[in-house]
């Protein structure tokens, strides 16, 4: 008997209603995938292939038309703190300070804790993403990079079994992006939380993932291929580009994405 996967997506499809028409627009069909405990899996695909929709369905903030999502073998019903999300647009509460934003998730995750435990835990995670000194600022006063650090701290601090990252670095400038990616690697190494990420950045996917799932372009997108990333950990942005397998993997994925796009548009 195989060990039960941490996260399983089973034959999930999503259709959108087209206004004024009985027909439906199929975003993706029969998507099935498994993520093992401690694994870092990334879905990569063109805009419009529904990868963010898939992530939202796993998070429980969107609904699938068929199929189901299983967490440790149990079907999930709606959103939950066991699947913390890191959003592309950060989704921090703008009326709260950085500290209060992280604290909100700590309080939700550990309702029985004392004030001292809550405070200590919150500060520990703020420190982990180097936000000490900015804890009393509101998100509007921070750069995109700092805001996403807060988003990561909020997600990690809840110690969820699964984390869902929705293009977490897309709105961060290229130089800061690398630094925060390194921070994510470090935090992931410490916690080995199961991560499901969605991105359209190939380099980012290779750097972070154990396995990359390639989706064909929409409409009616589907999983086209899975690529294992055999490069040993710990990885860093510098070490990875010196690895001989890196360019082969990168070219393979990019060629695949481009060919599929041409087939669709042809």
């Amino acid at each position, binding site marked *: 008997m195989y060990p039960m996967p941490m996260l399983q997506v089973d034959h999930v499809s999503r259709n959108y209603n087209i206004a004024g028409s009985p027909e439906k627009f199929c975003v993706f069909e029969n998507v099935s995938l498994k993520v093992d405990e401690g694994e870092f899996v990334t879905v990569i695909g063109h805009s419009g292939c529904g990868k963010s929709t898939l992530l939202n369905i796993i998070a429980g903030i969107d609904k699938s038309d068929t199929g189901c999502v299983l967490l440790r073998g149990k079907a999930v019903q709606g959103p939950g703190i066991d699947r913390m999300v890191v959003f592309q647009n950060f989704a921090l509460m*703008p009326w709260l300070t950085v500290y209060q934003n992280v604290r909100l998730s700590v309080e939700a995750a550990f309702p029985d804790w004392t004030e001292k435990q809550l405070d200590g835990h919150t500060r520990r995670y703020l420190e982990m993403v180097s936000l000490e000194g900015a804890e009393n600022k509101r998100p509007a006063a921070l750069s995109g990079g700092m805001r996403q650090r807060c988003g990561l701290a909020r997600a990690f601090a809840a110690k969820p079994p699964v984390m869902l990252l929705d293009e977490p670095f897309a709105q961060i400038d290229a130089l800061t992006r690398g630094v925060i990616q390194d921070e994510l690697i470090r935090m992931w190494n410490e916690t080995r939380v199961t991560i499901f990420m969605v991105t359209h950045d190939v380099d980012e996917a290779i750097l972070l993932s154990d396995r990359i799932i390639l989706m064909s372009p929409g409409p009616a997108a589907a999983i086209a291929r899975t690529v294992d990333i055999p490069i040993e950990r710990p990885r860093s942005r510098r070490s990875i580009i010196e690895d001989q397998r890196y360019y082969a993997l990168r070219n393979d994925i990019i060629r695949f994405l481009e060919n599929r796009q041409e087939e669709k548009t042809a």
Partner: protein
Amino acid sequence: MSARARRRFLTPLSAGRPDPPGKGEAMTLKTAFLSLAIGCFLLLCWKGIAANSEIPGPLDVLATAVEFLRDPLYDAGPNDKGIGILTAYSMVRLLSGFTAASVCAIFFGVILGRSAILFNAVNPYIQILRAISPIAWMPLLLYTVKDSGITAFLVVFMASIWPTLANTAFGVANIRKDYLNVADILQMGYWKKLFQVILPAAGPTIVAGLKISMGSAWVSIIPAEAMLGSLGLGYFVWNEWNNLSLTSVIFAIFTIGAVGVVIDAMFTRLSRRLSYTD
């Protein structure tokens, strides 16, 4: 009509926008000077009109004002009280009606804002009700409750419920979906979600509604007091008219304006505290 203008037309509460943070910062020297010049011009106009009619001029009114303000808290029987006491009467009436109306408005506003169907079903009635001057309700209210004090309270209530109700519903309906998603992911209970996400997120819009409500309540309380004869600034202005003391009437007008400005400034401060930028 452009799409934008149409949207604004269809929006039920176009008047209530949150104050942008930083608005109303220190006036520059130029604006201060211009403001002073306009004030002097208006005073001169007044003086000119006063010189050619029975209307008292600025200096007469100033003299009356000094007299009234020398002892604002005197109490010489039921119909002869100081301007401070009269203002306090109006304020208590205002605050009680306004507070009761605001609690109701925010409560029902949240319910309406959470349900698009309910909001659309109720919206036409809100539009009709808020077009009615609260003074128009007065005969009916007086007939029903048969008490001038309660009637004045209800007039203030009617004047201040609609803007806050409409703004709360609008603010709650337009909360960014992300914030509600985060609340759901954190599995917040209903009350926690209400107080930690929904109300703070809609806070600036709600306060903008409260500000309009307060303005409308203050405007309506003066004629209500005048007509009902309830002690207060409205009663004062009408009483001085009956005494044919125009200087006192003009002084009362200025007092009403000054109190209104102070109330508005308080709400501007509150709204600046609750405002946030995304």
